[in-house]
């Protein structure tokens, strides 16, 4: 068994599977959930297939009530539009849906996070002469500001959990305490950060991220070593329930279905055949 695998009773699972399952448990049924691509989208769709069959998934590309049967590769895959309740233009998504405070849960990933759950997705190094230029803001700043609550999911590494962000792209609790309230955002801020080692929650007073649970097999020391600030652990620190057989079955089925769908695609060949046929029709 590799160091990435844990075992619980008969089943074994990876740290990433634990992270995705733990994130999926945070979603509520009937919640209007604004979903980022990658880890958040996988967790949200696992939730839709398990705990929260009625949650309404919103993607920034326009689908509201998306019901993808495989995991989307991009934020605007056709599978997101196909069975959606509605597909709205981009200005409506951001102005009418997000900016108004209608969204219950914003579900974000991040490249870097600090102790007050502020997020960097812009640069590593200086802005003018970056060491690594990251993709940038996308929808995240306004999701972080306006969703009633925010769930963040990312892998726990010293490069990600830093003492100081190179760039503050999206705001969690700013400088801690009541500093976020002074910005007069509509949304309440991050309620939980889920990693592959454990679950962090903001302290109710200081708003500093505090280790609330460790996943089975992970330790407080491990989490502290992977964190760039002096990570505090809750007094009543708990252990996350390992993924159930059912959670693992559904997650793996979802991944296998996605992989099979991608493998079968001969997009270019089919496209060329279609163009050739249209040309023939044109000649007739």
């Amino acid at each position, binding site marked *: 068994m590799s160091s990435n695998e844990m075992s619980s009773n008969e089943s074994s699972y990876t740290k990433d599977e634990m992270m995705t399952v733990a994130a999926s448990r945070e979603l509520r049924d009937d919640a209007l959930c604004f979903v980022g691509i990658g880890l958040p989208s996988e967790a949200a769709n696992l939730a839709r297939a398990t705990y929260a069959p009625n949650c309404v998934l919103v993607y920034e590309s*326009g689908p509201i009530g998306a019901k993808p049967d495989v995991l989307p590769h991009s934020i605007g895959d*056709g599978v997101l*539009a196909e069975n959606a309740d509605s597909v709205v233009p*981009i*200005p409506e998504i951001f102005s009418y849906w997000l*900016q108004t405070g209608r969204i219950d849960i914003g579900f974000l990933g991040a490249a870097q996070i600090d102790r007050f759950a502020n997020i960097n997705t812009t640069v590593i190094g200086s802005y003018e002469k970056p060491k690594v*230029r990251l993709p940038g803001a996308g929808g995240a700043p306004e999701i972080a500001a306006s969703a009633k609550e925010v769930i963040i999911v990312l892998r726990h590494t010293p490069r990600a959990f830093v003492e100081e962000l190179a760039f*503050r792209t999206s705001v969690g609790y700013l400088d801690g305490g009541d500093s976020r309230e002074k910005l*007069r955002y509509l949304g309440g801020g991050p309620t939980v950060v889920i990693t592959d080692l454990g679950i962090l929650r903001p302290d109710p007073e200081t708003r500093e991220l505090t280790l609330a649970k460790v996943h089975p097999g992970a330790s407080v020391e491990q989490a502290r070593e992977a964190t760039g600030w002096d990570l505090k652990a809750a007094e009543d620190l708990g252990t996350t329930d390992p993924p159930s057989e059912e959670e693992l079955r559904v997650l793996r089925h979802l991944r296998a279905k996605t992989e099979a769908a991608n493998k079968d695609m001969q997009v270019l060949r089919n496209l*060329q055949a279609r163009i050739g046929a249209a040309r023939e029709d044109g000649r007739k």
Partner: protein
Amino acid sequence: MADVVSLREAVAELVRDGNSVALEGFTHLIPTAGAHEIIRQDREDLTLIRMTPDLIYDQMIGSGCAKKLIFSWGGNPGVGSLHRFRDAIENGWPRALEIEEHSHAGMANRYVAGASNLPFAVLRGYVGTDLPKVTNTIAPITCPFTGEELAAVPALSPDVSIIHAQQADRRGNVAMWGITGIQKEAVLSSRRVIVTVEEVVEAFEPHHSQVVLPSVAVDAIAVVPGGAYPSYAHGYYARDNSFYEAWDPIGRDRERFREWMERHVLSTEDFAEHLESIQEAEVSWR
């Protein structure tokens, strides 16, 4: 009114050196054929505008077409980095690239202001982030009625916009459906408009979430089947995720990128030849 012309004629006529150019399509209906034709015609000093630069702006930036980029998310969706975009910003290759970056909400509002012929748009956003420190097109503004502090962003009014749509009809109206993104606003905010389409039909059939752009909003229509590949055209072809993955090592290496562009874009006459050329080479990147 829209004229139906070849894409080569449309770009030759309507896209000039130094123009601000918006090629829009949010993951869906990305106007790849339009981007390639601009590269083939060697346009320079362009200000490229697009919410999600994607592979097309990676190719245009790497080919030296751009002096400036206005954007909100510059990655290879589902894969990782856009390496030509990164190389230009991190190392100034093949030339220095000025950037002006926003959030998606900011970009969307800027297009809406442009389409509405207003000088700026107002939104709840940016406050508390570092973006206003590095982007001078974000400014605070006080509501004259409530005193509330909000963010103002200037209108986008591109010289040219290029989009890809599923269909045009005989009168030059344009129909697109599925995820229609920001294309309507990009078109209505631009001085000149080129639309590539999958096909021309006698009359449109109704589709869920359909947007129809009237002919009067469009200058040129070019029929380019497959023109959004490797992105997709809902109802026509799927997104080729394998191409997005294959682009990562091609875009990562300057020489490999140049060879690829030379062989599959610059040496091909048009998008149909480009598709044939990459299909012949498919084994090498799959």
